[in-house]
């Protein structure tokens, strides 16, 4: 199948979600700063939310604020949006938990850079 420019334009939400996922994974993998790792996890979560909400979209349809007796095709699918709300709450919980762990790590080691923490730990082990 030859890939055309319309293919990218029609699926721009999916492509954006996947690029965002890879950007978040790059941040988690390469940055030694723990807070930047948490930000990367948040970017990955956002990409999953974007992908999930995009599945329920119908082109030309309105937001699911309906009148009585409205046809189903004139309104986007409300189910993925309602489910993503649970995901957002879980993301808040995970972020708060990770940040509190980082506060404790900063208390114990005096830094939040992962390579410095590794040096301190190996020095402690050699003593």
């Amino acid at each position: 199948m030859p890939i055309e420019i319309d293919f990218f334009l029609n699926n721009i939400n999916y492509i954006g979600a996947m690029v965002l996922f890879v950007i978040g994974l790059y941040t988690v993998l390469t940055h030694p700063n723990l807070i930047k790792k948490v930000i990367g996890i948040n970017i990955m979560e956002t990409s999953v939310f974007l992908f999930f909400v995009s599945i329920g979209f119908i082109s030309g349809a309105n937001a699911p604020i309906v009148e009585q007796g409205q046809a189903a095709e004139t309104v986007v699918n409300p189910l993925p949006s309602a489910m993503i709300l649970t995901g957002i709450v879980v993301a808040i919980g995970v972020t708060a938990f990770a940040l509190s762990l980082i506060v404790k790590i900063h208390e114990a080691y005096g830094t939040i850079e992962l390579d410095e923490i590794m040096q301190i730990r190996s020095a402690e082990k050699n003593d």
Partner: protein
Amino acid sequence: MNDLIVKMTTKLVLPFIQLYGIYVIIHGHLSPGGAFPGGAIFATSIVLFTIVFGLRIGQKRLPHHVSSKLETSGIFVFIVFGLTGILMGYQFLTNQEAGFPMGEWGRVFSAGFIPIITFALGIKVMSAVVTLFHTMMEEE
């Protein structure tokens, strides 16, 4: 933070943020929004107050024992209104069949227990975010 402009702007903007949060919570079953965004907006106002005026004054405005009771009462209202469905002979969290008044289409007081549960959840989310923020600020 000892800046006069920041303090005066915060004092001016704060009631409007809180009014908007309460509006989003109360109209949760009529317009875009609901318990979680409204509670987050309301919590943002208290977080802004704590950032500008310091932790001591911010905690005096919403102390920990008050916010914990607000959170518990929010989830308590949710469960009590859910148990009403069982008392009326239906399942947990039954709305229309359990005899809640449905009201007129498009009014604030309509749709059975949805506005009540939205309000309780909004208060719960607000106190949850404020408690998270105050607990992390206290560590400094």
